[in-house]
């Protein structure tokens, strides 16, 4: 488990306060890469932490079969969207093409939606399991 989660959580709060205040000296394409990269990094931290907690609960037999099935379904959807976004970002970083940008934006929006679903379902289980 990475020890940088405190700075990331604090950075997320600070960044929310600063919405709309992107670095003005960067080009539009550079800001797009940066914004999507930061969003993916925070999404990855959230997913990895959540799933590590879920694994502990499962290993301790504190999750029902139905709960595991539900978590697997949502997390697989998130996983596919995240990697589509990360692959898209890699392509966009190379090409700066509008098609790659749109593909990446669509995938990150899907990933964020599934991450929200995963957290809504998993957070009460994690809190209850503490």
């Amino acid at each position, binding site marked *: 488990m990475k020890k940088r989660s405190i700075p990331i959580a604090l950075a997320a709060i600070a960044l*929310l306060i600063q919405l709309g205040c992107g670095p003005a000296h960067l080009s539009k394409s550079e800001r797009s890469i940066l914004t999507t*990269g930061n969003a993916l990094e925070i999404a*990855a931290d959230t997913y990895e932490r*959540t799933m590590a907690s879920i694994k502990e609960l499962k290993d301790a037999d504190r999750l029902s079969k139905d709960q595991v099935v539900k978590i697997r379904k949502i997390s697989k959807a998130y996983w596919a969207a995240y990697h589509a976004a990360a692959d898209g970002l890699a392509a966009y970083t190379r090409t700066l093409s509008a098609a790659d940008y749109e593909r990446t934006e669509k995938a990150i929006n899907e990933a964020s939606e599934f991450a929200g679903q995963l957290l809504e379902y998993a957070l009460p289980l994690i809190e209850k399991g503490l």
Partner: protein
Amino acid sequence: MTEEERKLTIALARLVLEQGAPLVFGAIKASRRETLTMEEVEDLRQRCPHPDEYLGPEN
């Protein structure tokens, strides 16, 4: 996972839920660094292991 790490997990999850996942993931515009290198982009592709690695293989 330590108790501190569990609390951080919950704190981060709560932040995302309370602010809204699309807002948190989609509207972060400030930067911790000025550029994202290709290597860093590639690192992102290595993140997020498949759910089977946490839950075991699907029956």
